[in-house]
């Protein structure tokens, strides 16, 4: 088969396979993401109110405490296998909140524990979170340097 024919063949095949895919339900997906994402943020807001009014935290300490508690809940739910189920329902609604970040760290850590504690759990822990930290530090430091020289 010549190159061009194969390309067409692939294209036809992909179109054929796609015709059996269920159509993406844009509206339903978006609504679910909105509801679940909003709900997680409301839980965060609830923690903010509690920490602020009861313990008396404020400013950076307050956000840090809320983040830590949400990350704890995210990893715990990942351990119980609940977060994956939420994720199947909510899509981006469970990925984008900080609990999704926690899930992306805890999930491979639990999964790759069987491959050893160093090259398994510890190395694979950052398979998704690594890029976030790498680009976060690069972009953040760039912002810092720009502000320094402005």
């Amino acid at each position: 088969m010549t190159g061009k024919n194969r390309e067409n063949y692939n294209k036809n095949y992909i179109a054929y396979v796609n015709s059996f895919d269920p159509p993406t339900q844009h509206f339903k997906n978006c609504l679910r993401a909105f509801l679940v994402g909003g709900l997680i943020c409301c839980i965060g807001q609830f923690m903010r109110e509690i920490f602020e009014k009861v313990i008396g935290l404020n400013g950076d300490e307050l956000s840090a405490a809320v983040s830590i508690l949400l990350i704890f809940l995210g990893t715990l739910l990942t351990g119980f296998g609940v977060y994956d189920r939420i994720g199947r329902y909510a899509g981006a609604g469970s990925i984008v909140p900080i609990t999704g970040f926690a899930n992306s760290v805890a999930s491979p850590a639990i999964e790759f524990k069987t491959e050893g504690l160093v090259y398994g759990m510890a190395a694979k822990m950052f398979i998704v979170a690594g890029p976030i930290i790498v680009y976060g530090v690069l972009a953040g430091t760039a912002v810092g340097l720009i502000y320094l020289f402005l």
Partner: protein
Amino acid sequence: MFEPYLEIIWGFVKAFAVGGLICMIAQIVINFTDLTAGKILVLFMLAGVVLQGLGLYQYLVEFAGAGATVPISGFGYLLANGAIKGAQKGFFGAATGALSAASAGVSAAVIFSFIMAMIFKSRSKKN
């Protein structure tokens, strides 16, 4: 007499609306581009860094509270904000500010993930 309660409820409404909206934008991006979860997270984190770099994201945080800080773009906001605050102290602050502001989140994620990995066994993914 109901004034403080109304304010708290209004805070929840704003957090729900803004947090939900950020997640919905992410879902729209996923629907149309097939980006994986990791790339979405990086993209939204960078959006937070850029928006705070321009000095805009802090207004969203003031308005929506947890609705702006809980999504991953809030993590980017923390990084940028730390770097900007550090830059006022000089070069060393500018270079270390970003990561020290994010240290609580990163440390918590590592520590809790380690604990969970010690407690739980991996389960086969049921689809």
